[in-house]
């Protein structure tokens, strides 16, 4: 008969971890059963590898049917997790270490009874976040004892009892009492506990003498109760399952923290880690670390500050009747001494130290898809370490190493791994600089495993992905932006395929609007591509073809449009015009201007808005010398007021400076508005408001100033106003002015 000991733990807590380690060293079990997915049994040995640095997580991944039902779940372990200590102890002592929870293969299929139960991906062990009582029973007990923090309670009640007996029997009793409270029936929980009992039975049968079971404290009473094997078999019979792969992935402290949505999370992983790892004097070490961190942020914190902070923390602990200063006391000391009462640095300490930004590592031998390995090699080669905190990074594309970094980040984005997010300055500040915000999230490993289907290296996978995207692209604009991304990611292999798809699509697409929407994205890399040294020739061919097609297709596309459609065409014309100016190709520009010329030659077919804008574009290009007369025609009485207003809007849409500087045009607009009949004025007022409302305040003001003086002085300030001045009325004013100037005539 084998000897079974149950250790009900809190999933992450230095207290439980230390107590468990001591207990295991005492009992020396030859088999250890741990709450976790049994699929991970083959890779459990990796935990003993020196390359394995917590926090890490077991990742169970299921591709699902056709990629739609994809699921993944994580079982995180920190240095201070009791389970992790049990694994490490067991492996070092040569005991058999097994996981005993319900297999992930079953957990991924939601039970029929309550479909809600299946954990959404990335939120932790399925079923881990149930009602409050169930998910953190120790926290619940701590609250009953009047403590805010379960770890604090555990520390005070269990840890600092001195050499008392093992806490685990008492914890198990408390759980049994809690479980007597009737709660809602939880099918998944019954299945999990049934499986744990079954694993225990099997371990007994395998002939182990001393078996240790490490599981959430909540489950201990259920595992102890003598349920017949047949009952469990009935519970577990015929459970649906799916295909699952399991591996280790690096994890972060930030993801362990409660506020990131992880059910069994803890508030202060950094503090717990410190408590567990600090060999002695935890308070002194902690405050020194805080001081060094603040110093690195250019806040002046001296050793004298640290000394006083330690004294305050200890005095405070004594005042509160606690055996040792805890996180509360230490944080007060940081606030009152190190930060001199200010809250912002305290928040910094919380983020950097209390939660911490530690990221784990897994050894080389860990099962990985080749893509992950390739990425690791690239990260090492380019010295771009994944780190969980957000960091800005400037890349100078003229340097080869930075160019390669940029390429890697762009390729990863194509694979849906947004490790880096490009900042705004990438496009605005120049062609050779990129600003990236880097932040590694553990879930990226899931994306990488997913993307492993595309290829074995980041470059090949991204190229394959781009080709697949090109084949599926639904619109021309999608294709061009894809082409742009390919160029940024330097995917020369994929570019021909994307270009072919683009050329085919452009040739077949009859809607000139699509072509126009596609052009700007194509022109940008053509213009800016040179900083990366990419060969843009294929792109050039496609762009050339697009320009010709646009010029041919535009005239029929702009006639007979209603207002809304005209507005849409207007933005596209603007975009194409801007893109062509950027491309700076004389032949294309000339063709484009001729097209516009031809359009203007038959103005009746054009909407007023478009006609106004074309006039403006050609005026800016210096190809029209009769703009005043064109405008006069457009706003003359023969034209309906609505059309005239639309013309004005199109003409002035680019900005009001023209009206400030060209008085003839201003006079025309002014005269037109003044001559409008009352009801027509009301009709065009909204259009005018829209036009003028888009100008800057300064433009509006100076236009207003000029319009005011139009009537009084027809030709500027130098010309005298019409009509003779009335001597008798002007006399007193003139005398006053002379008086002020000191030129008073002797009267």
């Amino acid at each position, binding site marked *: 008969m084998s000897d079974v000991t149950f250790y009900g733990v809190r999933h992450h807590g230095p207290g439980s971890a230390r107590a468990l380690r001591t207990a295991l060293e005492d009992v020396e079990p030859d088999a250890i059963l741990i709450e976790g997915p049994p699929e991970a049994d083959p890779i459990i040995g990796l935990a003993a590898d020196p390359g394995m640095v917590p926090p890490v997580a077991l990742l169970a991944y299921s591709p699902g049917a056709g990629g739609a039902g994809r699921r993944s779940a994580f079982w995180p372990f920190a240095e201070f997790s009791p389970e992790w200590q049990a694994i490490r102890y067991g492996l070092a002592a040569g005991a058999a270490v097994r996981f005993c929870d319900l297999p992930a293969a079953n957990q991924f299929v939601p039970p029929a009874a309550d479909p809600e139960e299946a954990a959404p991906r990335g939120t932790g062990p399925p079923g881990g976040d149930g009602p409050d009582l169930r998910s953190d029973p120790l926290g619940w007990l701590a609250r009953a004892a009047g403590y805010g923090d379960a770890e604090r309670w555990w520390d005070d009640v269990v840890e600092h009892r001195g050499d008392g007996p093992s806490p685990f029997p008492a914890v198990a009793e408390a759980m049994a009492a809690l479980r007597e409270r009737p709660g809602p029936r939880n099918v998944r929980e019954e299945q999990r506990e049934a499986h744990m009992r079954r694993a225990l039975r099997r371990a007994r049968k395998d002939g182990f003498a001393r078996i240790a079971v490490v599981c959430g404290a909540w489950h201990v009473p259920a595992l102890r109760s003598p349920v017949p094997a047949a009952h469990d078999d009935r519970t577990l019979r015929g459970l649906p399952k799916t295909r699952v792969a399991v591996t280790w992935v690096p994890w972060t402290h930030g993801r362990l923290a409660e506020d990131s949505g992880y059910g069994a999370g803890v508030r202060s992983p950094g503090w717990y880690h410190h408590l567990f790892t600090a060999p002695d004097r935890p308070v002194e070490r902690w405050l020194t670390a805080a001081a060094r961190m603040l110093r690195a942020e250019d806040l*002046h914190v*001296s050793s*004298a*500050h640290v000394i*006083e902070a330690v*004294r*305050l923390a200890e*005095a*405070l602990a*004594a*005042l*509160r009747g606690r055996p040792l200063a805890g996180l*509360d006391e230490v944080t*007060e000391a940081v*606030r*009152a*001494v190190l930060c*001199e*009462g200010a809250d912002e640095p305290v928040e910094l300490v919380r983020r950097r130290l209390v939660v911490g930004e530690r990221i784990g590592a897994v050894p080389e031998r860990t099962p990985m898809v080749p893509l992950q390995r390739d990425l690791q090699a690239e990260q090492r080669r380019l010295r771009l370490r994944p780190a969980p905190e957000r960091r800005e990074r400037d890349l100078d594309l003229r340097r080869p190493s930075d160019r390669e970094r940029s390429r890697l980040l762009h390729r990863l984005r194509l694979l849906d791994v947004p490790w880096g997010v490009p900042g705004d300055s990438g496009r605005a500040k120049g062609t050779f600089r990129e600003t990236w915000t880097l932040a590694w999230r553990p879930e990226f490993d899931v994306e990488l495993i997913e993307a492993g289907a595309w290829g074995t290296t980041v470059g090949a996978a991204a190229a394959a992905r781009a080709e697949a995207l090109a084949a599926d692209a639904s619109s021309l604009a999608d294709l061009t932006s894809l082409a742009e991304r390919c160029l940024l990611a330097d995917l020369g292999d994929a570019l021909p395929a994307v270009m072919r798809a683009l050329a085919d699509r452009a040739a077949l697409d009859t809607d000139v609007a699509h072509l126009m929407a596609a052009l700007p994205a194509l022109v940008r890399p053509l213009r800016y591509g040179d900083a990366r040294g990419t060969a843009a020739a294929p792109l050039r061919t496609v762009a050339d073809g697009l320009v010709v097609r646009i010029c041919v297709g535009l005239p029929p596309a702009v006639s007979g449009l209603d207002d809304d459609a005209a507005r849409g065409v207007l933005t596209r014309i603007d975009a194409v015009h801007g893109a062509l100016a950027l491309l700076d190709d004389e032949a294309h520009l000339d063709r484009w201007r001729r097209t516009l010329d031809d359009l203007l030659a038959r103005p009746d077919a054009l909407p007023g808005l478009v006609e106004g804008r074309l006039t403006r574009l050609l005026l800016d290009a210096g190809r029209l010398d009769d703009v005043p007369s064109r405008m006069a025609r457009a706003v003359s009485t023969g034209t309906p007021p609505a059309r005239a207003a639309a013309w004005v809007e199109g003409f002035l849409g680019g900005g009001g400076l023209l009206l400030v500087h060209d008085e003839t045009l201003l006079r025309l607009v002014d005269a037109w508005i003044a001559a409008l009949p009352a009801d027509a004025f009301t009709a065009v007022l909204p259009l005018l408001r829209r036009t003028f409302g888009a100008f800057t305040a300064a433009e509006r003001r100076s236009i207003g100033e000029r319009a005011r003086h139009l009537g009084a002085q027809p030709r500027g300030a130098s010309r005298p106003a019409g009509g003779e001045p009335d001597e008798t009325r002007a006399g007193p004013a003139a005398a006053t002015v002379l008086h002020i100037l000191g030129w008073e005539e002797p009267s």
Partner: protein
Amino acid sequence: MTEILRPHAEQEYAAELAGLAAHDDRPRPPGWRLSPWAVTAYLLGGALPDGTMITPKYVGPRRLIEVAVATLATDRALLLLGVPGTAKTWVSEHLAAAVSGDSTLLVQGTAGTAEEAVRYGWNYARLLAEGPSEAALVESPVMRAMRLGAVARIEELTRMPGDVQDALITVLSEKALPVPELGTEVQARKGFTVIATANDRDRGVHETSSALRRRFNTVVLPLPESAEDEVGIVASRVRRIGAALELPESPAGLEEIRRVVTVFRELRSGVTADGRTRLKSPAATLSTAEAISVVTGGLALAAHFGDGVLRAPDIAGGLVGAVVQDPVSDRVVWEEYLETVVRERPGWSDFYRACREVS
């Protein structure tokens, strides 16, 4: 009732302090009258085993008082920061009374405070007649506190000129005050420490040097968190002051106090209590202390000129005076508040009319 207008904390609460001392069996730091636990209990209130009630002196987060007491217990100096009217002086007085039984060793910081107020001065008649001697020395409160091993209080630290502030550095680090004229020094006895208060609203009057700053532990006193807390603070303080002034008790007072506190909180935070309307904030701080003085003033009006019951007209005058400090901009803020918020609020029409009359 004594003839004294405002007794010191250790006089007014002598019974509580004696009761605490009688039941205090915890270790006391050298020079302390009470143990740190008893000091905390004195400030936060509670009941003693023999039934003596300790009134709460400070209503607010417990941890602030614990940090303050722990600071003093480690013989560090304590700096209480906060906007005006957040009970900084009040807390410092009571801490001094509880720790050393004497809250009178006080230096008031002003722009004109001279170094003599912090170190020592001379009795010039004696100095001229006899030359420098112990007898000609005039001790500052700080020097006295060092001799006695008591708590010295410095009010409005940042209003003192920087060089005067820096005179404290030696005192706080060496715990000694040299008197070179006599070739002697005063060494502080155990129990000596300093509680300073400073206002962080008009910061930069005289910025504290970092050398001095790092000798203080800083506790920031916040404005009361909830309206209920604030009403409680105002009501209890008004009752005390009223008793000292021998004003008759006012039965209907709580409702008016609630209104004053509501007005103050809303104008201070720039949003109405229900969080639905944004308001402009006046330049005045509108602290709890000002609310207390508005209500006390109203009580005096009601007692002497009204029917003895605190009503809206009694507090309206004081309230408007507290809010409208700048006759132009604050007037606009107040009128807006009156017309958009007070006027619409059910049950406040008497209050609205009273305010209209004095505005």
